């Protein structure tokens, strides 16, 4: 069922390893996206673990999930500089988690900013444009889109998380095929929300084809299954 993974080659020259970090704000669907990736990884024949920040942080706080995929899974937290892919549902949260990204790692970022609920005196101003520029300046492989708007066009802004998974699958940034993750979408998303999520997922795949310089994922990465 499983072919040799090509991702993560060069990490001490051993079995397949692919670390994904999803970052966002409470309520954006970080946990659901992470669960979908984990289930897809299992379907593709890999071992997997996820670690989420849940609890108090869900109240408008920063939320992240570490997803580790591979032939062998160590601890559930990704060490600094090891994430192969950073999926940022929000600009500031993407930048906050940059130290986890490896040097030639890839980023998919949602340009739609969520300002913090309150600004205690002395805390920094939130300038999303400056942070997005910072990302562009420091990371090579970056795909930046307003996924919230894209999801809204598909039916609900809430599906931005699934739209971003679509973008990840469409650019071949995931170690499994888009069909596998679509199959997970069918089982994991309740029926009444399924069509809109499928539309967001597929809408993102279509949209990224229009972006010049985005390689066709199927050719770029040897897929599993």
């Amino acid at each position, binding site marked *: 069922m499983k072919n040799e993974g090509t991702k993560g080659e060069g990490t001490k020259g051993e079995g397949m390893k692919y670390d994904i970090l999803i970052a966002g704000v409470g309520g954006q669907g970080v946990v659901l996206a992470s669960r979908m990736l984990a289930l897809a990884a299992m379907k593709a024949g890999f071992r997997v*673990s996820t670690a989420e920040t849940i*609890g*108090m942080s869900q109240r408008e706080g920063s939320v992240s999930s570490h997803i580790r995929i591979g032939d062998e899974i160590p*601890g559930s937290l990704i*060490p600094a500089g090891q994430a192969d892919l950073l999926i940022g549902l929000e600009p500031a949260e993407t930048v*906050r988690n940059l*130290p986890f990204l490896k*040097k030639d790692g890839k980023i998919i970022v949602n340009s739609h900013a969520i300002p913090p609920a*309150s600004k205690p005196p002395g805390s920094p101003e939130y300038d999303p444009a400056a942070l997005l520029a910072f990302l562009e300046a420091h990371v090579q492989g970056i795909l930046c889109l307003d996924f919230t708007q894209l999801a809204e066009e598909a039916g609900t802004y809430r599906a931005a998380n699934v739209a971003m998974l679509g973008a990840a699958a469409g650019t071949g940034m995931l170690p499994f095929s888009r069909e596998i993750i679509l199959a997970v979408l069918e089982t994991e998303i309740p029926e009444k929300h399924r069509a809109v999520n499928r539309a967001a997922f597929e809408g993102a795949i279509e949209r990224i084809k229009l972006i010049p310089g985005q390689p066709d994922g199927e050719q770029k990465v040897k897929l599993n299954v």
Partner: protein
Amino acid sequence: MTEKKLLMGNEAIALGAIEAGVQVVTGYPGTPSTEALETILRYADRCGIYTEWSSNEKVALETAVGAAYSGANVLVTMKQVGLNVASDPLMSLTYIGVKGALVLLVADDPGPHSSQTEQDTRVFGHFANIPVLDPANPQEAYELTKLAFELSHEFEIPVILRTTTRVSHSCGDVEVAAAEPVPVEASCKGFTKDRRWTIFPRLTAERHPWLENVQVQLSERFSGLPYNSVSGSGKIGIIASGVSALYVKEAVKGFEEVFTLFRVGTVYPFPEKAALSFLKGIEKLIVVEELDPYLEEQALQLVGKAHLPVDIYGKKNGFFPVSGEYNVDIVIDSVNKVLADLGETASLSHASPAILRGELPPLPVRAPTLCAGCMHRTVFYAFKQAAKQLKKDSQVETIFSGDIGCYTLGNAYPLNMVDTCLCMGAGMSIAGGLSRTNPEVKQVAFIGDSTFFHSGIPAVVNAVYNGADVTLAVLDNRTTAMTGHQPHPGIGVTALGSPSKAIDIAGVVRSCGVEFVRTVETGSLENCVEAAKEAMEFKGPSAVVFKGKCVGITKPFTRFAIDPDSCTGCGFCVKQLGCPAIFLPAGEDKPLIQDSCSGCGLCAQICPSGDIREEGVKK
């Protein structure tokens, strides 16, 4: 036929318990332990498991004890601070022991992420003579849960399954016995009268040698278990348990000839025999563990006892952080410190990140906040106004004591309404103490509905009995909100979903002898301020029960909007409330109300120019 499932650690524990034949499950919600009991609830009907959210952890344990005395297999779930509440029955229970099996899931929280303490349940097990199993991931959590039931049954003592946040709240592919859990046939013969169930000094004296002997037997047994394993072939030993062991494995990858790792899965009683044979093969020992230096102390003792020439590097001599959550990078840095001290040329290396933490631009602070439309915000704001008035009229200051729950977030800017917070149920007692030493200052204590039933009532009794001049504000949002909306004794429904008698908080307070008791809906700020003022002016214990509904479990029926034409841009709503739905775009002076508005209307009630209006039904 085994089956692979993606399970959260807490779910894996629940499935392990069901397969071990658990018949009664009790607990009190507490992050990161809550999902274990919630998972049991999904199977409770099908597998015939009696499951309850108890009023607190002590009650949960005592309920479980009654069932275990009768020969049932029982599980009790709580977070680490819950164990403090349950410690009174637990300390005695060890002497009496159980029939059937009694397993406690206790979830520790290094960091801490959502707790008051960084206490270490491994040490508690040692203190209380209770075996402690320490899984590293969901798979081990599943297996060690089953082992915990086996051991408890065989040795007739309670067993603690101790997790940490990264075990309880991690998901992993877990190999389970079957796709849906199949409980083993468990028998519960019912209670048999015997003097062994009644603790008494003489009985304790009789049982103490037995209890100590069990510890020795368990240590022997643990030394032969595969959960304590040795890998690698180096002269530098590393001992670790729980998730720390996995961090070590990742950190020393490629250095297996330099290090030998001893992973301890059954941490108390310490598996001395296995440890001794490991220690004899090494020259130096590095101890890697979150929270307390428990393994380090065990190793120090053993090295002393066996006169082994092994130097030990851990927290006690400054090589490892004494507090906080560990990760691979912390382990690498700390091990490198040891290697440098030993004069080794080799060192472990970090991966190179896209950017170093120190190179990040300034980022917005995203502190956890009360939800948009949360009733607690209205109550805090009402007391703020009442206290201002009291100061203006009679130059009396007010101290606000908080409690544990979502409403601890009342401490945040701009509300700043929590001056003390200690533990569950402490707010009103602390306010009582403050009233004795600050007689010129008004004392107000906030408590949530679930916390009131958990441990708030004794403080009300004490305030009445000893005549403390304290105002109690009960924030009744009809749920245990912070941990994910569990029912409680005031709701009228049990964990299993059956109807029960809803206990009326105002009635309880009144029956304790509080003479001033008001109940107010939180929809009207004016009414809330009025009730707060009256209660604060009352001499002696007074209480107001504020009734609202948690926005986390109710659908908003309306929303509000700011009229941009007439808004004066004074920023009052933004500066006063800290509501996450009110957003002031950078560089502008007129705020917007976002989609997350749930229609509480608090902002409209305070807007000086009346420019915030109800917009009607939300889509």
